[in-house]
């Protein structure tokens, strides 16, 4: 139930934003991440952005590879 989807913020109108989620534009609330800016990637749960993501694209395999390497020894 704690599923989240990643979206990119396109427009901001006060506490509401339009985010592109897998190619679809949706209204989300950014009241839990007031520092969000246009083009930020956010994790969205139940219509609310719950965090701003560090990575530009969380699903990028390259990043996952470097993560794996970090723990290799």
């Amino acid at each position, binding site marked *: *139930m*704690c*599923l*989240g989807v990643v979206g990119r913020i396109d427009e901001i109108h006060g506490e509401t934003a339009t985010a592109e989620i897998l190619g679809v534009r949706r209204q989300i*609330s950014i*009241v*839990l*991440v*007031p520092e969000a800016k246009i083009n930020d990637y956010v*994790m969205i*749960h*139940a*219509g*609310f952005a*719950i*965090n701003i*993501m*560090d*990575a530009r694209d*969380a*699903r990028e*395999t390259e*990043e*996952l*590879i470097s*993560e*794996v390497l970090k*723990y*290799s020894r």
Partner: protein
Amino acid sequence: MLKALMETVASKIIKAISEITDRPVSLMEVCGTHTMVIAKSGMRAMLPGKLRLLSGPGCPVCVTPQETIDYCIALSREANVIIATFGDMVRVPGTRGTLEAHAPRVVYSPLDALTIAKENPGRDVVFLGVGFETTSPTIGATIVEAARKNVRNFYVLSAFKLIPPALDYIARSPQIDVQGLILPGHVSAIIGSKPYEFLAEKYHMPGCITGFEPIDVLQGILILTRQIVDGKSAITIEYDRVVKPEGNSQALGILNMVFDVCESRWRGIGMIPDSGLKLSSKYSRFDVRNEYDIKVPESAEPKGCICGRVLLGLSMPFDCALFGKRCTPVDPVGPCMVSSEGSCAAYFRYGDYGKTGQNGAT
């Protein structure tokens, strides 16, 4: 390519775990979403037989008491009430029947329930609030919005639960044999890593906040296995692309303002101190129990269902005599078979049971 990567990590896990020769290693994936990822990816087949992955209590639908559902069904009989909730909740069996038969409004966001309230000024809209720290801030923010807009016909039935007190319960239970915890990614996006530190300090139990790609879960397992091999215990963050150690301070502020911590009953487990949320006095006018004082009788679990044991990692779904026979996702007996992220449903759906390596079979 991703498969090769997964195999690389899996081989590292096998290598690390081969250093432990005297006993099996049990890890608990606390979060139901992880249970689903593990079952769906088929990663158990890649992992060493000595490593056991046990499901935990992190399935909100599974741990919501029948009494909450019974109360909601009784509420929905009031002519003036509209029940709104998340889709996951409507098929969960109460003592007699589910909410589904009582035409609840299924919403994606709690803000949609507030919209329903505004559109139906003559009726009371009650949001059945279930979930963990991922979800409760979204309802908290909705309540703040309702107060600001002075919406008088919006109420919440607060059945929210907190993860760290449940983990404390697990860590201190002598009969639960778990050496490390795969910690929930999105709960931790809100609370950060600090609320788990007691696990390492008090119980010498390592924990790893883990993301939801199969490769994330394998990495989480690797990090935990290495710590166990080295006799270490720390709380680490594998899912650092989303989770910050300090969590989300804005969301935590809203939780603090709107809710107070209270004791809470976990279905199949029992009462756990300080593990739930109720509305704070400032927002108590949104508490539906103040408005509708309906008593529902105490309820017993369905006969034969061992969900409580499954949720604590004491039994595997296939240990239940009803599993796959009288109890299936189409006709579920207990809550762990209803929710797609319940362990019984995950094991059933992906045929991920009875394999060697699970339940210490080999």
